């Protein structure tokens, strides 16, 4: 048989690709369940991190079920439209330009001391790729409690510092989103500077990570602002 003929070459490559493709399809199907479980556990870990709960790997799912006592999906009017916050894709929602059309997930967390915190997810872009985060708010709907930020590929030592405590811990109970009846999501500004809006509470960005820091600010602005009505209804209660 002539191994250099066109027919042989074409048949050879078709068979090879079919064999490799089939093998990959089976492996992907076989591992799918485990992979989804890993992704979900990681998401739970991040949600819990925003309320300063950092369980061991094996404790993530039990702790999530223990502390996250309810899930809500609200709209920009603050009305509840669903209960399955976990399956909402925050990335897609954050790209809907009209906030009225967004579905806004809320995780209700009851801490060991009985106090209730509301965890709001956010998604945006940093310098090199996507960044995301979870902000937890006190039951007054205004005072912050904590935050977690993650990123895909920000520069280590610069933009990647947003996931470090030195940045996240700035989001604490000194910050309020409602001031004198006005709603201002938290701003992120260069260290030493004041925000454009003098009423807004702010945190310091990371020196050397300006674009990532601005990304965090824009992300909070885009993703947390639609919660205004919901947070307002909390503070009125």
């Amino acid at each position, binding site marked *: 048989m002539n*191994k250099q003929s066109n027919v042989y*070459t074409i048949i*050879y490559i078709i068979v090879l690709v079919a064999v490799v493709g089939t093998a990959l399809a089976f492996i992907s199907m076989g591992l799918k369940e485990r992979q989804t479980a*890993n992704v979900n556990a*990681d998401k739970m870990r991040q949600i819990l991190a925003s309320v300063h709960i950092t369980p061991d790997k094996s404790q993530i799912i039990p702790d999530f079920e223990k502390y996250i006592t309810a899930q809500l999906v609200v709209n920009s009017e603050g009305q509840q439209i669903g209960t399955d916050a976990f399956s909402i894709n925050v990335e897609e929602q954050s790209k809907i330009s009209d906030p009225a059309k967004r579905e806004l997930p809320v995780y209700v967390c009851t801490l060991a001391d009985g106090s209730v915190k509301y965890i709001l997810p956010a998604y945006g872009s940093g310098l090199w790729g996507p960044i995301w985060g979870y902000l937890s708010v006190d039951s007054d709907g205004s005072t912050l409690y904590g935050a977690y930020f993650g990123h895909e590929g920000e520069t280590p*030592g610069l933009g990647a510092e947003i996931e470090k405590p030195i940045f996240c811990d700035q989001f604490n109970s000194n910050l309020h989103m409602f001031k004198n009846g006005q709603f201002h999501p938290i701003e992120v500004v260069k260290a030493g500077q004041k925000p454009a809006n003098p009423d807004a509470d702010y945190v310091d960005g990371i020196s050397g990570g300006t674009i990532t820091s601005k990304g965090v600010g824009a992300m909070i602005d885009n993703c947390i602002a639609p919660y205004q009505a919901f947070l307002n209804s909390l503070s009125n209660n």
Partner: protein
Amino acid sequence: MAEKINYKDVLFNPFSKNNPVVVQVLGICSVLAVTAKLAPAIVMGISVIAVLAFANVIISLLRNTIPTNIRIIVQLVVVAGLVVIVSQVLKAFAYDVSVQLSVFIGLIITNCILMGRLEAFAMGNKPWPAFLDGIGNGIGYTIILVITGFFRELLGSGTLLGYQIIPQWCYDHGYANNGLMILPPMALIVVACIIWVQRSYNKDLQEP
């Protein structure tokens, strides 16, 4: 085959005398990218050993059937398939590490060491020596990765495999982690230092 193959040389030469990274200077890209911490460096090394060994064996088994004019494509298909398998397995069993390594597992496909070994060795040798060659070159690559990762994590973060190594009193007395070590350029400099040390021990590697 007329030429007799010394299995020992095939396995051990790539460790030092014919190291793919510091002698052949292949696969530098991933050395820069994944060695900021030791753990991903080790996982990356194991992944490359697995992919390289199996790709070498598969290509060696197929070597007499592969049409010459599409041999690079066939090699790529085999390597890409194996890399996707490794990436899927990591996502299922070592999720944290797979997040850290992100795209670099996928980029094993473009690692010159693989194509280099497949084309230079597996296409012309039987499966067993090809397997040894894959293991040898994979380990040679891993050695450099681990040495680089060791120094970068120790000096850049003060830890090894996540455990604090540099004691707190050093920091109290003014020691600071070298932030430059975690940035990619320092990997190049560390690799250059390894090359320097290796060349000064192996005089026959020195270029005139």
